[in-house]
């Protein structure tokens, strides 16, 4: 590969979708039926470039036993702005990196340049490939899905702009740029959720998503400020000034090479918590997850792209990218894990009682993202790579599931309530089969993709909960606390070639670095991770349950179609599509066209099954491709341990404290069995409740199905199961949903309401009376004067 090629490709990956978006905006109407071409071609070419980049980013990675050398390429596009003085890190703090020339600090005029710099490393390459390839498949799928929508140009322009923003987000090499594109993807998401803005739900959901995300963005802004204050720069990479001195970037190799180069303690924990707040907002973690289920008001392909596969993983990316910052704050890491596991469990519980197919998937997304956070929170190399691994596999199968749901929705005339249709495997065989594959992957059934990645996450959690079980070495006799623990463990790695348990893993141990102890470090004990492991295991079972509940409700049982389905393909005129997509099809009321006589009854028998059919090939082919990927990708990546080794060369993951936690890749049979067992129980429960039943049967009337007599023996079992398992589970889930709706939503609303209430108070002052104003003004001035006089003369 020529030396300049990676840089060129790196620029091309975001540039091509940007151009595609601009072309679509400018020429949108003139392209007519080929309006999708720029987006598909642009994102397609970007996908090719991303594939090549994956090869280029390989660097020295791949070796499993020697510590990988960091691989990183940066390319600076232009200087955005230069500020003539940056804050220098406080002398004496770890951020100041003693012994390394930090620019011309003596004159106090070290310039801070805000450059637009892109970077290439394994993490970025992986993310870029996921973004562009899922984007490509979604764009192709949308050709079929959106083919009747009059606003196609806007849709494809937004998708292209989103791919551009997301690519820039993962490729930019500065916290400031990350912040800029963090907002940009939020804006794209806002516009796509509100795509059908004539529906008030969509507009409301868009606004909610934006406002909730602002809370997270606030966290990112504070984090950026704190990073700037602490490290004096915002770049990830090292910058070499003209005079040859190196300004170490926050995640640059100079700093990474120094074991004590990162600030822990209170400030470090605060930075990490702010970053976590940002990540929680974008990745829909408790308590900022409330926007994601509502975001399903957007077009299904957009949901698949943004709210399942890519944008919501930005938080995971951010935490993984900032791994060295987190590793020195075990307390913050513990909070990450805690938030993640809690989110996973709560969202899974809520998912079990949803009747809207897309909402089931939305809660499932929240839950799976929670898994990733739980894994990140372990702070081990295995945890970080497992999270990214799960991110990749989840992007595959969740996009598949969403697109499948979209296919169902497309065929059902916009109806997505699972109680209103059933037995669709007969009419939509390809969708049913691919959806089934996706569900197996999501449920974690071997050998599908989700199984491997979930297994790695469970293993990572298990390793933190039971260090001894993983061949950990106890350091009961710790050396003097002054010695840097990270260095110590790094020295141990080659000699023993055995996994080492950093001291911080035990609850009473000091922090991993010799500096200040963070305020939350007491959290990071083995006991916490044990609890989180069990939570995750339960979540795995719940995941399988709600996934297969949805599968059984949708695709098995007697064939039933909603009346709207007849209209879905009755005609292909734009008005028709507009009617079905554009106007409140989410409602339970029979909608359809007001003018068209509703000749179809509401029962399955009355619906002409022929009216509904499988989606066109342009929609099913992406499903098949994704299904194939979901089948093999987990096995491929796991068997070769390729991804883990590849990612280990990411500079962020070569921090000594991270490298110290390297363990040889292994397949944990016991964990695999536990995970599979949980999934099997979940599937079995779902099958008992829903397999072959009418999906609209209330839970008490389940036994009215046609197979009732044949399974008479199951009567007692069903009842017992219902009383012992289903009822408690349901009430728990309802309770979780209630808490979600009332408390957390209410809390978010309350946060929004406080300023408004304050505003109402302040507005009282604007009474319109001239002399009131002057009196109030003079009183204010007097207060200032008195305060000043008191301050000076006291």
């Amino acid at each position: 590969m020529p030396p300049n090629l990676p840089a060129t490709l790196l620029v091309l990956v975001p540039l091509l979708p940007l151009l595609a978006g601009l072309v679509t905006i400018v020429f949108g109407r003139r392209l007519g039926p080929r309006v999708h071409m720029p987006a598909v071609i642009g994102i397609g070419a970007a996908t090719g470039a991303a594939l090549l980049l994956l090869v280029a980013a390989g660097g020295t990675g791949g070796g499993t036993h020697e510590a990988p050398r960091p691989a990183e390429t940066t390319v600076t596009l232009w200087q955005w702005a230069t500020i003539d003085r940056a804050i220098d890190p406080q002398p004496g703090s770890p951020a100041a990196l003693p012994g390394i020339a930090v620019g011309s600090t003596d004159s106090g005029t070290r310039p801070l340049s805000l450059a637009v710099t892109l970077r290439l490393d394994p993490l970025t390459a992986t993310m870029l490939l996921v973004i562009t390839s899922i984007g490509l498949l979604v764009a192709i799928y949308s050709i079929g899905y959106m083919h009747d929508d009059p606003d196609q140009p806007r849709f494809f322009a937004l998708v292209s702009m989103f791919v551009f923003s997301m690519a820039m987000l993962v490729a930019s090499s500065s916290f400031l740029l990350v912040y800029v594109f963090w907002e940009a993807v939020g804006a794209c998401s806002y516009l796509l959720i509100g795509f059908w803005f004539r529906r008030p739900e969509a507009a409301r959901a868009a606004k909610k998503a934006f406002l909730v995300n602002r809370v997270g963005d606030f966290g990112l802004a504070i984090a950026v400020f704190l990073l700037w204050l602490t490290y004096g720069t915002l770049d990830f990479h090292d910058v070499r000034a003209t005079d040859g001195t190196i300004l170490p970037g926050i995640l640059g190799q100079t700093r990474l090479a120094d074991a004590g180069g990162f600030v822990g303690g209170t400030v470090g924990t605060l930075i990490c918590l702010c970053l976590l707040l940002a990540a929680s907002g974008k990745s829909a973690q408790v308590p900022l997850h409330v926007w994601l289920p509502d975001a399903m008001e957007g077009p299904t392909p957009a949901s698949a792209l943004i709210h399942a596969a890519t944008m919501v993983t930005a938080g995971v990316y951010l935490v993984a990218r900032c791994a060295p910052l987190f590793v020195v704050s075990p307390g913050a890491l513990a909070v990450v894990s805690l938030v993640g596991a809690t989110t996973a469990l709560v969202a899974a519980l809520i998912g079990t009682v949803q009747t809207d197919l897309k909402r089931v998937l939305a809660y499932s997304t929240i839950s799976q993202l929670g898994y990733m956070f739980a894994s990140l929170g372990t702070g081990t190399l295995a945890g970080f790579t497992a999270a990214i691994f799960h991110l990749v596999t989840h992007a595959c199968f969740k996009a598949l599931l969403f697109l499948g749901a979209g296919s169902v929705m497309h065929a059902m005339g916009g109806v997505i309530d699972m109680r209103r249709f059933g037995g669709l495997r007969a009419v939509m065989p390809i969708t049913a089969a691919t959806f089934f594959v996706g569900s197996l992957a999501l449920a974690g059934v071997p050998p599908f993709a989700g199984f491997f990645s979930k297994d790695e996450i469970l293993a990572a959690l298990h390793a933190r909960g039971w260090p001894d079980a993983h061949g950990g070495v106890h350091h009961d006799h710790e050396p003097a606390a002054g010695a840097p623990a990270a260095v110590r463990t790094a020295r141990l790695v080659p000699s023993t070639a055995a996994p080492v348990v950093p001291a911080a893993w035990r609850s009473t141990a000091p922090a991993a670095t010799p500096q200040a102890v963070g305020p939350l470090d007491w959290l990071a004990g083995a006991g916490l991770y044990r609890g989180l492991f069990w939570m995750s295991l339960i979540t795995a079972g719940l995941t399988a349950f709600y996934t297969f509940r949805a599968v059984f409700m949708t695709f098995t049982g007697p064939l039933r179609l909603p009346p709207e389905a007849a209209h879905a393909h009755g005609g292909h005129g734009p008005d028709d599509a507009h009617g079905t997509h554009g106007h409140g099809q989410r409602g339970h009321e029979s909608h359809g066209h007001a003018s068209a006589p509703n000749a179809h009854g509401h029962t399955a028998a009355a619906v002409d099954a022929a009216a509904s059919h499988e989606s066109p090939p342009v929609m099913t082919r992406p499903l098949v491709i994704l299904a194939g990927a979901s089948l093999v990708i987990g096995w491929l990546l796991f068997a070769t341990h390729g991804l883990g080794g590849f990612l280990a060369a990411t500079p962020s993951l070569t921090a000594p404290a991270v490298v110290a936690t390297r363990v040889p890749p292994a397949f944990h049979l016991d964990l695999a069995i536990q995970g599979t067992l949980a999934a099997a129980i979940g599937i079995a429960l779902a099958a008992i409740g829903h397999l072959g039943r009418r999906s609209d049967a209330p839970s008490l009337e389940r036994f009215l199905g046609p197979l009732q007599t044949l399974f008479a023996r199951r009567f007692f079992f069903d009842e017992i199961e219902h009383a012992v398992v289903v009822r408690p589970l349901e009430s728990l889930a309802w309770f979780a949903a209630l808490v979600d709706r009332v408390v957390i939503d209410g809390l978010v609303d309350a946060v929004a309401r406080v300023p408004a209430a304050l505003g109402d108070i302040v507005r009282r002052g604007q009474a319109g009376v001239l002399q009131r104003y002057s009196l109030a003004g003079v009183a204010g001035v007097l207060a200032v004067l008195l305060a000043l006089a008191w301050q000076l003369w006291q």
Partner: protein
Amino acid sequence: MIAALLPTGTTPLLAAAVASGTVSLWLLLPQAPGSDWLGHRRGALGLVLGVAALAALAWAGRRLGGLGDEAVFQIVSLVAIVGGAATVVTRSPVYSAIWFALALAGVAGVLLVLGAQFLGVATIVVYAGAILVMFLFVLMLAQPSGLAPYDRVSNEPLLAAIAGGVLLALLTTSIGRLSADPPACCTIPSRADAVATAPVGPAAADALAADPLARLGRELFGRHLLAVEAAGLLLLVALVGAIAVVSRGEVAEATRKGAS
């Protein structure tokens, strides 16, 4: 012991003057009758307190030295203050304007005592001669007879009087602190240095005695020539703008009437 409680720069006498002045102002300001228990006694009480405040203020002042200077200054400043207070508290706006003319006379006197002859005369000419007469015209035009209700009540008299009292206390305290000791940080060990470096001050003030009018003119048309030009622009813009506003208002009025 009261003095110990007060901040540097003020004296019990001054504080009493400010306090009684505040209360007197509150009592004298136009208020609807029967609004409190004082009733018709508030006017008398206010006057008594006001006189007391003036006396205390006069007593709290510094001695100027020569008896003649002292007496003249006391009289003209008394006129200014009484006129000003009466302007504010008189119910009838016409009387208020006339009291204001008296206050202007007092101010002119103070300016004369301070050695600003030109400004003293200019004040009388500009204000009493032009502005005030104009306003009296307007008053006569707008308010042919009697007292309007809004002249007989005032807006939040208590709060405004308190605000005024606080501000006056602050101002007089500041003025009193002008003769305080310098802050601890800045006492120069040797007084000789201080005297040597002392810039303009009371001694320089005597220089004013020589031909003040010419010097003021030189100042105005020397260094401040640009500002004079700017003042000319200000007068121009006020004149043109005022006429334009009036004429446009008439046009609008005509349009409104034509429309209706």
